[in-house]
């Protein structure tokens, strides 16, 4: 078994074999969700803490349901009503959670590297549920899982990631997973949000929408991250929608079998219009279903993992 890690901190440090191990395991957990009894006892007696220092709804719910379907007990810990607001440090918060015998800590934090920091001292298994603009590994895994389920493979496919790349942890995790599994990755968006430096990760960078989507087997649209932008990186939402939005007028540029993906929440009329969001090529809701299976697989695998990781 190629998986022996205690934590899931990022996709950058995973091998292609480890990523495939998660995807293979997730495929089995997906079938659990299709049964009348959608619950298995694999994590019975374990305690999972959802430590979401930065707000999130869909990722938090997905992790919560994943833990519940594995029969774990789940505690929700949100930033706005917590000791962190009273000045407690993250380290002290986690030590307190561990004093309550938490076995897993799912961390969402605005600071890049926060989960790696926890992994250095915590006894619990740490899962990164998004750290700043760094990584969102389970989103990257569920995206490649969805591509593999729909297309039968990942290697050799042309995958275009469109939108706010600079501030996107989803883009970074996707790039790592896709490159490791052998996909060709194209990044597209306004030059201010898609700098050339991403070519160093083995991606093609283009600011021309037509050349980005013409040969794409997969188009992954990213939301404009208003909350992570310190200043305006493009003139207006209207101009962004006109230049880079996937809308009906660009239908002829998109391959008829291209998958349309979006991590959500979608801004209809900005990066995507209804014809694409609700069209037959859209797998946006499949991504949600698959995310649950992938998160069950991650919790199951790291529970059996033994290897102590030296945090970066």
């Amino acid at each position, binding site marked *: *078994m190629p*998986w*022996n890690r205690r934590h899931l901190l990022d996709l950058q440090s995973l091998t292609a074999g480890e990523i495939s191990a998660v995807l*293979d*395991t997730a495929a*089995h*957990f997906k*079938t*659990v969700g299709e*049964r009348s*009894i959608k*619950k*298995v*006892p*694999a994590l019975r007696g374990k305690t999972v803490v959802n430590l979401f220092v930065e707000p999130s709804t869909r990722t938090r719910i997905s992790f919560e349901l994943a833990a519940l379907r594995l029969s774990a007990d789940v505690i929700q810990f949100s930033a706005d009503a917590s000791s962190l607001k009273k000045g407690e440090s993250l380290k002290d918060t986690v030590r307190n959670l561990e004093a309550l015998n938490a076995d897993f800590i799912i961390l969402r934090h605005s600071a890049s590297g926060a989960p790696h920091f926890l992994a250095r001292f915590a006894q619990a298994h740490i899962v990164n549920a998004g750290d700043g603009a760094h990584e969102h590994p389970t989103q990257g895994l569920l995206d490649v899982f969805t591509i593999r389920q729909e297309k039968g493979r990942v290697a050799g496919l042309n995958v275009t990631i469109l939108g706010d790349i600079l501030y996107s942890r989803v883009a970074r995790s996707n790039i790592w997973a896709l490159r490791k599994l052998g996909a060709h990755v194209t990044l597209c968006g306004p030059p201010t949000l898609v700098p050339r430096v991403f070519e160093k990760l083995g991606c093609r960078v283009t600011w021309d929408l037509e050349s980005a989507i013409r040969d794409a087997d997969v188009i992954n649209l990213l939301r404009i991250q208003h909350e992570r932008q310190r200043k305006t990186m493009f003139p207006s939402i209207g101009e962004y929608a006109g230049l880079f939005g996937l809308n009906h007028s660009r239908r002829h540029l998109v391959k008829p079998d291209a998958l349309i993906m979006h991590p959500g929440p979608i801004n209809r009329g900005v990066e995507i219009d209804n014809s694409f969001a609700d069209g037959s090529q859209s797998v946006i809701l499949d991504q949600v279903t698959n995310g649950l299976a992938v998160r069950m697989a991650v919790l*199951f*695998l790291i*529970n*059996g*993992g*033994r290897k102590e990781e030296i945090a970066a």
Partner: protein
Amino acid sequence: MSHLLLDAVSLGRALARMAHQIAERNGDEDGVIIVGVQAGGIHLARRLALLLKEIWRRDVPHGTLDVSMHRDDLDARGTLVMRSTNLPGDITGRAIVLVDDVLYSGRTARAALDALNDFGRPRRIQLAVLVDRGGRELPIAADFVGVKASPRANQRVDVCLTEHSQRDEVLVEDAMS
């Protein structure tokens, strides 16, 4: 060091005898489903289903069951490779014959009972194993046994089948070898 517990001929006879015992204990009308436990039981289950087809002169449904999500020793075993669960239709009201290669602690059989429970309520569940090596840690017994053996705790029982090995045979090996 290893010694031969069953050669190809005696393995074939053991399976044929088990198939006849299954047919004696279950009527044709019971709707028997043969379920192989991943990974060691799946080929044996398919073979038993074929032998029962000759006895009953009809197709006998068979499937596979992965029990890794239902084990009680996950913490001790580390990360497991998950395999497919594929049951041929609704199991409620049917007679299930669980098939595994080796019965030892009984923990796999217990996990299999729990896993089946998630899919429905069978009328009865019986257990068929090619090798019963003793050493039970739970009050579980097999209904149909190919061969009994008493290897030492540090010895391994290796079931080789032509589906993935050169020949049909069962070996008892020292763990060192």
